[in-house]
C-alpha cells in the first residue's frame, strides 16, 4: 500500500500569493501583481520583471524558470495577425465547469 511518506511543499498554491481575495475582489489583477512583485523582490533582492493575470505565475517563473515567461493575460495579448482566439470554451459555457 502506498502512503504519503514525507512532507512536501507547494510552489504555487502554497506561495501565499493565490488568496481568496483574488476571486472576490472586483479587479484583482493589480493587487495580485503588486503582491507578486513584492514577494519576488523579497526572495530575489530585486524587482520582478514579469507579471501576469494571475499574479503568482511570474513569481514562480522568476524564481525557478526565467527562460519561460508566464502568460501575461492581464496585458494586451500579442497573437500574430494570422491567429484568432476563442475557438475553445463554447461547448462548456452552458455548464458550471469542466471538472467532474
Amino acid at each position, binding site marked *: *500500500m*502506498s*502512503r*504519503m*511518506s*514525507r512532507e*512536501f*511543499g*507547494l*510552489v*504555487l*498554491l*502554497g506561495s*501565499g500569493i*493565490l*488568496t*481568496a481575495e483574488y*476571486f472576490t475582489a472586483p479587479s484583482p489583477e493589480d493587487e495580485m501583481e503588486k503582491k507578486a512583485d513584492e514577494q519576488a523582490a523579497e526572495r530575489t533582492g530585486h524587482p520582478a520583471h514579469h507579471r*501576469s493575470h*494571475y499574479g*503568482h*505565475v511570474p513569481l*514562480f517563473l522568476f524564481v*525557478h*524558470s526565467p*527562460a*519561460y*515567461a*508566464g*502568460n*501575461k*493575460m492581464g496585458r494586451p*495579448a*500579442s*497573437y*500574430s495577425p*494570422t*491567429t*484568432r*482566439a*476563442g*475557438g*475553445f*470554451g*463554447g*461547448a*462548456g459555457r*452552458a*455548464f*458550471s*465547469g*469542466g*471538472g*467532474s
Partner: protein
Amino acid sequence: MHRMAVTPRPDWQRKVEALGLHFHTLDGVPYWDESACYTLSRYEVDSIERATYALWEMCLELVQHVIDNRMFGLFLIPPEFEEIVVRSWDEDWPSIYGRFDLAFDGVGPPKLLEFNADTPTGLVEASVAQWHWLKETDDRGDQFNSIHDRLIEAWTATKAFDPAPIHFAAIEGNVEDYITVEYLRDTAIQAGLQTAYLDIEAIGYDTARKRFTDPQNRVITTLFKLYPWEWLTKDTFAPNILTAGTKWIEPPWKAILSCKSILPLLYQLNPDSPFLLPAWFEQPGFGSYVRKPIHAREGANIQVVRNGVAEEETDGSYDTSVCVYQQLSDLKAHDGMYPIIGSWVVHGWACGIGIREDSRMITQNTSRFVPHKMSD
C-alpha cells in the same frame, strides 16, 4: 469503515485557504467538512487499493478492445476523431490521473460507480488539504495518500516523453477548476517542467503556422486541459485539433474511459469481476437501477429507480437521450450520510482516496468532502 464526529480546527477556513482551497464553503454550507472524518482499517484500504488496480487494468483492456473492434460509436466519439484517439493510444501519449468513484461498505468488495478519467477534480482536497488536516490533528496518524508524490512522478515521466513546456488550461472564471489546474501545474513544476497557465478561451489558432498558440504567440506543443473531450470535439476549433500537432493531456483515448458507456461494456467483458455492478445499454424492464447519461457530470441528470419506480432524480443540463443503466448499489449510511470513495489512480498507481458524503444517495458537486485516516 466508520464515521467519527471530530472537532474542526480553529480557523480551519484560513488553513485550507492557505493551501488553495478557496471553495471550502458553498452557499454558506461547508464543502470541506472537518467536523467529521472516516476511519478505515488496513484491510479496508487494501481492498480499495486492490479494486483500483483491477479496475484500471480492466479499463486499459477495454480501450484496446474498443480500438480493435472500432466501437467508437458507443462513446459518441465523432468519426473524424477516431484516428487521433487511436494514435494517442498507440503512441502512448502521457496520461496523468483519474478517479474511480466506488461504493464501499467496508465488508464486501468496492463497486465501481463511475470513472472520472478525463477531468477529475476534488484533487487538492484529497492530496493536500486532508493530509495537512491529518498532520495537524494526529501527527502520528496515517492516511491512504501518496497522490502528491505520484503526480510529480507522472510529470517526470511526461518530461521524459517530451520535455517541451506544457500549457495548462481551464474554463475562465471557475475557481475549483482553476485551483485544480494550478495544483497540477505546481506538481509539474516540481518535476522540472516549464509551464504556463491560460484560460481555455484564450487559446489561439494560427492559420499560417497551423498551430495552437497562447496569447504571447508561443506555440502550444503540449496542453493539459481541464475541459472534457466531448466538449473539445464540439467547439469551433475542433477540426484544428486533428492537424495542429498538439499533444493533449489527458490524451484523446481518455474520451473512451470518461464516457459512462464503459460501465456496461466493462461488465460485458468482465462479468465475474467482484468490483463491477451489472450494467446495461438498454433500460431494464424491472428491478432497481440507476439511469446515467453517458456524458453527464457531477451527479447531474441521474435517476434512481427502485423496484421499477423512479425514486429520485437530480436536475441538470445534460443530454439524457443516451443513457446507460447500472444496478442500484444500496450505499451504507453512516450517521445518515452516504459516503462515496474517490480512489485516485496516478501514473498507473492506486495512490489515495478522497471521501465525499451526502444525505442523498446521489453524490453531486455540493456533496461534502470529509477527510479520512487509517485506524491502525
